[in-house]
């Protein structure tokens, strides 16, 4: 019973920290993925004089990834039947240049307004049309949740770390006597602190296994899956193999740091 309590005292805060890390990783992936899709849904078309330089447009704003003139031949072909060659040539002459602008990332409406103003200030640009699907509200909500989750994760991390420090102090107290006795008989550091490090490794492994089990449970849960799908995100974003490496590194380094902290603070009694 005492041994279970010993383990839980470190495993639980460690579990909380790892779970926060995993949630932040998942949230990051979902919002990144959403941003990518939003960017693809944007369509910015410039109407400009034929004299305009494409390089002026592409260098006008850091948000712009590429610019490409829109092929007008297909539009003209469509109306070709209803008019004669002469009229078509005249239209071609007076027709402005249409330029498609691709963006690097999704930007909120305020930033898009700024982009529009900058594009309009370029000599030769007559008009700028931004076609967008309305995603702003959901995206704003995601960003809000992400910020809140970062804050919550930070808060949880601090609380969990304080709990771990408390547990380390208890460890120090519990192991001090044994370490003192071993030191009196000349035990090297690795031998007298071996139990502590073994305990830390076992607890790190237990916390890691618990988080992975919890994430697998969540990923396979149909409710969670439908929520993720309703957001238009891919449920496979929930669990990545790379996360395991991040969580394992976090778990073992935190637990070993805790053990090392106790060992470093060990002082022989006089």
């Amino acid at each position: 019973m005492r041994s279970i309590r010993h383990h839980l005292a470190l495993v639980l805060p460690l579990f909380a920290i790892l779970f926060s890390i995993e949630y932040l990783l998942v949230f990051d992936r979902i919002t990144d993925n959403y941003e990518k899709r939003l960017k693809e849904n944007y369509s910015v078309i410039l109407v400009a004089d034929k004299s305009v330089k494409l390089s002026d447009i592409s260098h006008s704003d850091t948000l712009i990834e590429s610019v490409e003139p829109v092929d007008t031949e297909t539009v003209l072909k469509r109306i070709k039947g209803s008019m004669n060659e002469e009229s078509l040539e005249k239209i071609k002459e007076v027709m402005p240049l249409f330029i498609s602008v691709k963006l690097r990332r999704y930007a909120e409406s305020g930033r898009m307004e700024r982009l529009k103003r900058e594009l309009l200030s370029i000599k030769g640009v007559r008009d700028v049309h931004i076609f967008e699907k309305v995603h702003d509200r959901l995206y704003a909500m995601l960003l809000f949740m992400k910020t809140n989750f970062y804050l919550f994760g930070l808060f949880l991390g601090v609380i969990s770390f304080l709990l771990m420090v408390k547990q380390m102090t208890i460890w120090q107290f519990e192991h001090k006597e044994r370490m003192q006795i071993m030191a009196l008989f000349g035990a090297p550091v690795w031998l007298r602190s071996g139990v502590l490090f073994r305990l830390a490794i076992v607890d790190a492994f237990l916390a890691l296994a618990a988080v992975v089990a919890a994430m697998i449970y969540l990923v396979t849960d149909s409710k969670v899956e439908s929520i993720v799908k309703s957001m238009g995100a891919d449920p496979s974003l929930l669990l990545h193999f790379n996360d395991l490496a991040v969580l394992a590194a976090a778990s073992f380094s935190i637990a070993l740091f805790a053990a090392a902290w106790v060992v470093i603070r060990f002082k022989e009694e006089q």
Partner: protein
Amino acid sequence: MRNVIEAESLKLAYPRHEAVIKSATFQIHTGEFVFVTGASGSGKSTLLKSMYGSMPISGGKLQVGGIDMNSISGSKLYKLRRHIGVIFQDYKLIKEWNVEKNVMLPLIIAGFPKDVCRAQARKLLAHVKLSHKSDKYPLELSGGEQQRVAMARALAHNPFLILADEPTGNLDDYSSRVVWDLLERANEELETTIVVVTHNIPDIFSADYRHLMIEGGAIYEIH
């Protein structure tokens, strides 16, 4: 005869306190059995602590086993301790370990294989008449039994020096007898140097052992 312990104008003081030992000069030779006596608070235990490196030297010189304790490094100190047996009044047994493993401690530290450690522990437990309690944990034993386990542990690695701090202070007559008997045998048969700090020298001793007394921060040779 080689000096196992050599002190010259030794001064021992706790931080922000007056020196407990102001100036002590003495030598203890190989194979000697020495009693160090003195009133409570006279500095007997402090002197013993300085011999196993648990008390920093404030002045003068102290050598144990030819090693200068003034400038000894951490790793050298641990190496030295692996050749010293220490017995404490409060036994200092590891509560989470059973009796046998407690006796095995100095051998585990020295890096002996487990079966060698176990065989030696069993032999010593038989000497202290505790073979039947090898699986018990310290808190399941009486004070006398715990001290006999501590005694077996101190002898496990055949140390060249045994330092005992009031080893029979809390013991009944039988356990005291076992402890003294084992110390005498180790001294006679193995030529182990023994330094015992005690309040009074028990009158059970057949031999006339050397006696040092601490008084007023100085150390005196009685006989």
